[in-house]
């Protein structure tokens, strides 16, 4: 590689990292947290005995999983304004990604809740815990252990999916790379650099995931 290329790397690394720190990372974190809360609600709705409630949850999950994330993003940012609802780029992306995580993680959480043996619900009932306390104190803590590996996958996918936000003018990592690359035509350098930064973020997350899994396994026999 030429000296010019190295200069370009040196001068773009700052803006790219700033795109990651101010765009990609907050977008991921905010969307994931909102998405998880939504997913828990949807999972519980899906498990509800009331047909209307579980049916609504089923439709929501089906819509989210059956349509492209990019299309969901476009509908929120480009189509909703025609209904008079104008949302800025960043919040639009948060809404789209939260709804998306909500749909996927809901199935994960539902399966994790169902993996807790029926006897645990019964034991909780016999010591007097009501439904909410049973979920909070007995079932969810055990479901978490089952849900963490698949939810980590969702999280890591989300980091990369946030690059789609570049299409609705959110200044995140990929968008920064595009902006720097366009006038210089150094696409290979800039996109590779962006890829490396995505990869490093995911490496950190994978490490955190293994640590969390080990921590959650401490009360389980091996």
């Amino acid at each position, binding site marked *: 590689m030429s000296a010019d290329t190295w200069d370009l790397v040196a001068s773009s690394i700052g803006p790219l990292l700033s795109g990651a720190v101010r765009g990609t990372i907050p977008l991921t974190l905010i969307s994931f947290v909102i998405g998880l809360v939504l997913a828990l609600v949807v999972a519980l709705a899906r498990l509800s005995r009331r047909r209307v409630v579980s049916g609504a949850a089923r439709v929501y999950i089906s819509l989210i999983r059956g349509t492209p994330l990019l299309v969901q993003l476009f509908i929120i940012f480009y189509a909703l304004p025609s209904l008079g609802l104008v949302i800025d780029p960043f919040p639009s992306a948060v809404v789209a990604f939260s709804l998306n995580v909500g749909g996927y993680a809901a199935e994960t959480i539902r399966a994790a809740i169902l993996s807790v043996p029926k006897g645990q619900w019964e*034991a909780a009932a*016999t*010591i007097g815990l009501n439904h909410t*306390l049973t979920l909070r104190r*007995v079932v969810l803590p055990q479901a978490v252990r089952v849900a963490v590996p698949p939810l980590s996958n969702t999280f890591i996918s989300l980091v990369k999916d946030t690059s789609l936000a570049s299409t609705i003018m959110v200044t995140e990592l990929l968008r920064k790379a595009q902006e720097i690359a366009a006038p210089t035509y150094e696409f290979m350098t800039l996109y590779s650099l962006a890829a490396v930064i995505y990869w490093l973020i995911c490496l950190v997350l994978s490490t955190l995931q293994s640590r969390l899994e080990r921590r959650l396994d401490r009360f389980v026999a091996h």
Partner: protein
Amino acid sequence: MTTSDATTPTDTRPLVEVHGLHKSFGGLHVLRGIDLGVDRGSVTVLIGPSGSGKTTLLRCLNSLEVPEAGTVRVDDVAIDFTRRPAAGDLRRLRATSGMVFQSHQLFPHRTALQNVTEGPLYAQRRPAAEVRAEATALLAKVGLADKADAYPHELSGGQQQRVGIARALALRPRLLLFDEPTSALDPETVGEVLAVMRDLAAEGWTMVVVTHEIRFARQVADHVVFMDGGVVVEEGRPDDVLGDPRHERTRRFLQRILDPL
């Protein structure tokens, strides 16, 4: 005495009364008109072949199973299951008893002590200091004072089951229900669990026990109920039912479990 006999000294009725209980699972008619009485401070042992309905009967006493017909009364809580029972009534019935499960069903993510304090702290909302002290004493009572901070998977089967007993006692129940508490245990740990149960009986706890431990029934029970095919075939004092059964079905059952070969 930790039981609540003192609360209603004038009440001479049995603590538990069951009349005309019916329960089906799908097309399977598991309980076909059960009547049962359990005196205060007595130990009732339910025996019978698997599928006879004894566990289902036990689970109707705390409404883990909701019968289709019949009445269940435990102390001052009575439910007529001919009508659809209110959720509050089921909760009040359940609160009268503590239960020990065949497969212990301890909470795996909580220590032995936390398993015992869970109900009193979070369901009964009693003061933490008092609950902790009582739970510690209960673990000592079942011989596990040194295991308070152990997680269930770090305990042997017999120890897990003894924590399960302490967890039930911590609720200060009026009735103790045991669902085959030793069936899932290694033979060498059965004794330690039965010994704890024998001590509880001697303290005057009212207990209903589903078990195949005929020797335990003989030594500890005040009343033995033999069930088969969803009905009570025969009941009475252990010496009579176990020693000199009147019914052929009881005789054959006892023969099979006392001399399996």
